[in-house]
Protein backbone atom coordinates (compact mmCIF):
# COMPACT_ATOMS: atom_id res chain seq x y z
CA UNK A 1 0.00 0.00 0.00
CA UNK A 2 2.73 2.49 0.90
CA UNK A 3 5.72 0.81 -0.74
CA UNK A 4 8.67 3.18 -0.61
CA UNK A 5 6.61 6.01 0.88
CA UNK A 6 9.21 6.19 3.64
CA UNK A 7 12.29 5.49 1.52
CA UNK A 8 15.47 7.17 2.64
CA UNK A 9 14.02 7.90 6.05
CA UNK A 10 14.85 6.38 9.41
CA UNK A 11 12.18 4.99 11.68
CA UNK A 12 12.81 3.99 15.28
CA UNK A 13 10.46 1.62 17.11
CA UNK A 14 10.63 0.80 20.83
CA UNK A 15 9.37 -2.54 22.08
CA UNK A 16 10.27 -3.89 18.69
CA UNK A 17 10.90 -7.57 19.49
CA UNK A 18 7.31 -8.84 19.71
CA UNK A 19 3.65 -8.03 19.39
CA UNK A 20 2.67 -4.72 17.84
CA UNK A 21 6.23 -3.36 17.86
CA UNK A 22 7.51 -6.22 15.79
CA UNK A 23 4.74 -5.87 13.21
CA UNK A 24 5.29 -2.11 13.10
CA UNK A 25 9.00 -2.59 12.39
CA UNK A 26 8.16 -4.98 9.55
CA UNK A 27 5.53 -2.65 8.07
CA UNK A 28 7.81 0.38 8.23
CA UNK A 29 10.60 -1.59 6.55
CA UNK A 30 8.19 -2.65 3.81
CA UNK A 31 7.34 1.01 3.31
CA UNK A 32 11.02 1.63 2.62
CA UNK A 33 12.21 3.01 5.95
CA UNK A 34 15.49 2.06 7.55
CA UNK A 35 14.21 0.73 10.85
CA UNK A 36 15.98 0.88 14.19
CA UNK A 37 14.34 -1.54 16.61
CA UNK A 38 14.89 -1.19 20.34
CA UNK A 39 14.08 -4.02 22.75
CA UNK A 40 15.72 -5.99 25.53
CA UNK A 41 15.40 -9.41 23.89
CA UNK A 42 18.51 -9.89 21.80
CA UNK A 43 17.49 -13.27 20.40
CA UNK A 44 14.14 -12.02 19.14
CA UNK A 45 15.69 -8.88 17.69
CA UNK A 46 18.21 -11.01 15.83
CA UNK A 47 15.36 -13.14 14.42
CA UNK A 48 13.64 -9.96 13.31
CA UNK A 49 16.79 -8.71 11.68
CA UNK A 50 17.06 -11.96 9.73
CA UNK A 51 13.49 -11.54 8.58
CA UNK A 52 13.72 -7.89 7.55
CA UNK A 53 17.33 -7.86 6.35
CA UNK A 54 19.85 -5.07 6.20
CA UNK A 55 17.18 -2.41 6.48
CA UNK A 56 16.85 -3.24 10.19
CA UNK A 57 19.23 -2.26 12.97
CA UNK A 58 18.81 -4.07 16.27
CA UNK A 59 19.48 -2.12 19.47
CA UNK A 60 19.39 -4.21 22.63
CA UNK A 61 18.52 -1.73 25.36
CA UNK A 62 15.98 -0.70 27.96
CA UNK A 63 13.76 1.87 26.26
CA UNK A 64 12.88 3.47 29.62
CA UNK A 65 16.51 4.46 30.17
CA UNK A 66 16.81 8.24 29.58
CA UNK A 67 20.44 7.92 28.47
CA UNK A 68 19.43 5.43 25.80
CA UNK A 69 16.69 7.78 24.59
CA UNK A 70 19.15 10.66 24.31
CA UNK A 71 21.84 8.61 22.62
CA UNK A 72 19.56 7.00 20.07
CA UNK A 73 17.72 10.21 19.18
CA UNK A 74 21.06 11.94 18.66
CA UNK A 75 22.49 9.06 16.67
CA UNK A 76 19.55 8.28 14.40
CA UNK A 77 17.41 11.47 14.34
CA UNK A 78 14.44 9.38 13.22
CA UNK A 79 11.90 10.89 10.88
CA UNK A 80 9.37 8.42 12.35
CA UNK A 81 9.45 7.57 16.06
CA UNK A 82 7.09 4.91 17.41
CA UNK A 83 6.94 4.71 21.19
CA UNK A 84 5.37 1.30 21.63
CA UNK A 85 7.39 -0.22 24.49
CA UNK A 86 5.38 -1.16 27.52
CA UNK A 87 5.12 -3.58 30.39
CA UNK A 88 2.54 -6.34 30.61
CA UNK A 89 0.51 -5.44 33.71
CA UNK A 90 -0.20 -8.01 36.42
CA UNK A 91 -3.83 -9.01 35.88
CA UNK A 92 -5.35 -8.87 39.35
CA UNK A 93 -7.99 -6.85 41.18
CA UNK A 94 -6.69 -3.73 42.88
CA UNK A 95 -6.45 -5.19 46.37
CA UNK A 96 -4.17 -7.93 45.05
CA UNK A 97 -1.75 -5.45 43.48
CA UNK A 98 1.31 -4.13 45.27
CA UNK A 99 2.51 -0.58 44.70
CA UNK A 100 5.27 -2.03 42.53
CA UNK A 101 2.92 -3.99 40.31
CA UNK A 102 0.37 -1.16 40.24
CA UNK A 103 2.94 1.42 39.11
CA UNK A 104 4.75 -0.79 36.63
CA UNK A 105 3.26 0.87 33.54
CA UNK A 106 4.20 4.31 34.85
CA UNK A 107 7.78 3.18 35.32
CA UNK A 108 7.94 1.63 31.87
CA UNK A 109 5.38 3.04 29.43
CA UNK A 110 4.93 6.59 30.74
CA UNK A 111 8.56 7.09 31.68
CA UNK A 112 9.78 6.02 28.26
CA UNK A 113 7.30 8.29 26.46
CA UNK A 114 8.41 11.15 28.73
CA UNK A 115 12.12 10.65 27.99
CA UNK A 116 11.82 10.05 24.26
CA UNK A 117 9.44 12.92 23.54
CA UNK A 118 11.59 15.25 25.62
CA UNK A 119 14.67 14.17 23.68
CA UNK A 120 12.78 14.55 20.41
CA UNK A 121 12.05 18.18 21.31
CA UNK A 122 15.56 18.87 22.62
CA UNK A 123 17.36 17.43 19.61
CA UNK A 124 15.20 18.82 17.95
CA UNK A 125 13.89 16.30 15.48
CA UNK A 126 13.02 17.78 12.12
CA UNK A 127 9.60 19.51 12.26
CA UNK A 128 8.29 17.10 9.64
CA UNK A 129 9.02 14.14 11.94
CA UNK A 130 6.15 12.06 13.21
CA UNK A 131 6.10 10.75 16.78
CA UNK A 132 3.45 8.17 17.64
CA UNK A 133 3.02 6.93 21.20
CA UNK A 134 0.96 3.95 22.29
CA UNK A 135 -1.89 4.60 24.61
CA UNK A 136 -4.74 2.09 24.79
CA UNK A 137 -8.49 1.73 24.57
CA UNK A 138 -8.14 1.21 28.33
CA UNK A 139 -7.43 4.95 28.58
CA UNK A 140 -11.02 5.58 27.46
CA UNK A 141 -12.83 2.65 29.06
CA UNK A 142 -10.70 1.75 32.08
CA UNK A 143 -9.26 -1.66 32.92
CA UNK A 144 -9.94 -2.58 36.54
CA UNK A 145 -7.87 -5.76 36.44
CA UNK A 146 -4.75 -4.06 35.11
CA UNK A 147 -3.53 -2.06 38.10
CA UNK A 148 -2.29 1.35 37.03
CA UNK A 149 -2.28 0.46 33.33
CA UNK A 150 -5.36 2.47 32.28
CA UNK A 151 -4.23 5.58 34.12
CA UNK A 152 -0.73 5.31 32.74
CA UNK A 153 -2.05 4.93 29.20
CA UNK A 154 -4.40 7.90 29.74
CA UNK A 155 -1.40 10.00 30.72
CA UNK A 156 0.38 9.03 27.52
CA UNK A 157 -2.68 10.05 25.54
CA UNK A 158 -2.95 13.40 27.27
CA UNK A 159 0.71 14.26 26.71
CA UNK A 160 0.87 16.09 23.44
CA UNK A 161 3.94 17.67 21.94
CA UNK A 162 3.74 21.39 21.14
CA UNK A 163 3.35 22.55 17.56
CA UNK A 164 5.95 25.03 16.43
CA UNK A 165 4.93 27.39 13.65
CA UNK A 166 3.81 25.58 10.56
CA UNK A 167 5.58 22.34 11.43
CA UNK A 168 3.63 19.15 11.75
CA UNK A 169 2.46 18.25 15.20
CA UNK A 170 3.71 15.11 16.86
CA UNK A 171 0.66 12.97 17.55
CA UNK A 172 -0.10 10.63 20.42
Amino acid sequence: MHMHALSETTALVTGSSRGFGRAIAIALAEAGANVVGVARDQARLEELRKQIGDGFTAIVADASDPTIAGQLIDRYRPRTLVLNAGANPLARPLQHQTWQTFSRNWDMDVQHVFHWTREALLCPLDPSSVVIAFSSGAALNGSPLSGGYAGAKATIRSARLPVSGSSRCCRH
Partner: protein
Amino acid sequence: MLPTLTPATDLGASGVAAYARRQGVTTGTFLEGRGPAPTPERVGAAIVELAVDPGHASGGYQITNAGLSPVR
Protein backbone atom coordinates in the same frame (compact mmCIF):
# COMPACT_ATOMS: atom_id res chain seq x y z
CA MET B 1 -2.57 5.31 19.24
CA LEU B 2 -5.28 3.57 21.22
CA PRO B 3 -5.53 -0.10 20.29
CA THR B 4 -8.57 -1.98 21.54
CA LEU B 5 -8.09 -5.18 23.53
CA THR B 6 -6.76 -8.00 21.38
CA PRO B 7 -5.74 -11.61 22.02
CA ALA B 8 -3.08 -11.29 19.33
CA THR B 9 -0.25 -10.07 21.58
CA ASP B 10 1.14 -11.46 24.84
CA LEU B 11 -0.08 -8.38 26.70
CA GLY B 12 -3.56 -8.52 25.17
CA ALA B 13 -3.87 -12.27 25.65
CA SER B 14 -3.15 -11.88 29.38
CA GLY B 15 -5.89 -9.28 29.64
CA VAL B 16 -8.39 -11.33 27.64
CA ALA B 17 -7.71 -14.39 29.81
CA ALA B 18 -8.14 -12.38 33.02
CA TYR B 19 -11.42 -10.76 31.98
CA ALA B 20 -12.82 -14.01 30.60
CA ARG B 21 -11.94 -15.73 33.88
CA ARG B 22 -13.60 -12.98 35.88
CA GLN B 23 -16.76 -13.32 33.80
CA GLY B 24 -16.63 -17.10 34.07
CA VAL B 25 -16.56 -17.64 30.31
CA THR B 26 -14.12 -18.95 27.75
CA THR B 27 -11.87 -16.48 25.97
CA GLY B 28 -13.76 -17.28 22.76
CA THR B 29 -17.07 -16.32 24.36
CA PHE B 30 -15.52 -13.21 25.86
CA LEU B 31 -14.22 -12.06 22.49
CA GLU B 32 -17.49 -12.72 20.67
CA GLY B 33 -19.46 -9.54 20.14
CA ARG B 34 -16.53 -7.33 21.10
CA GLY B 35 -15.89 -6.28 17.57
CA PRO B 36 -12.84 -6.85 15.43
CA ALA B 37 -9.71 -6.96 17.56
CA PRO B 38 -6.65 -5.43 15.91
CA THR B 39 -4.02 -7.83 14.64
CA PRO B 40 -0.36 -6.79 14.82
CA GLU B 41 -0.31 -6.59 11.02
CA ARG B 42 -3.28 -4.22 11.04
CA VAL B 43 -1.55 -2.03 13.61
CA GLY B 44 1.64 -2.04 11.55
CA ALA B 45 -0.28 -0.88 8.48
CA ALA B 46 -2.00 1.85 10.51
CA ILE B 47 1.33 3.13 11.81
CA VAL B 48 2.64 3.38 8.25
CA GLU B 49 -0.51 5.33 7.28
CA LEU B 50 0.00 7.77 10.13
CA ALA B 51 3.74 8.02 9.53
CA VAL B 52 3.02 9.10 5.97
CA ASP B 53 0.17 11.43 6.99
CA PRO B 54 -0.53 11.96 10.69
CA GLY B 55 -3.72 13.91 10.10
CA HIS B 56 -5.22 16.21 12.69
CA ALA B 57 -6.96 14.09 15.32
CA SER B 58 -5.95 15.85 18.51
CA GLY B 59 -7.46 13.13 20.70
CA GLY B 60 -5.54 10.30 19.13
CA TYR B 61 -6.68 7.37 17.02
CA GLN B 62 -8.39 4.20 18.10
CA ILE B 63 -7.36 1.12 16.10
CA THR B 64 -9.52 -1.97 15.65
CA ASN B 65 -9.14 -4.53 12.91
CA ALA B 66 -11.51 -2.40 10.85
CA GLY B 67 -8.99 0.42 10.88
CA LEU B 68 -8.30 3.80 12.40
CA SER B 69 -10.87 6.13 13.84
CA PRO B 70 -10.12 9.48 15.44
CA VAL B 71 -10.98 9.83 19.10
CA ARG B 72 -12.81 13.04 19.96
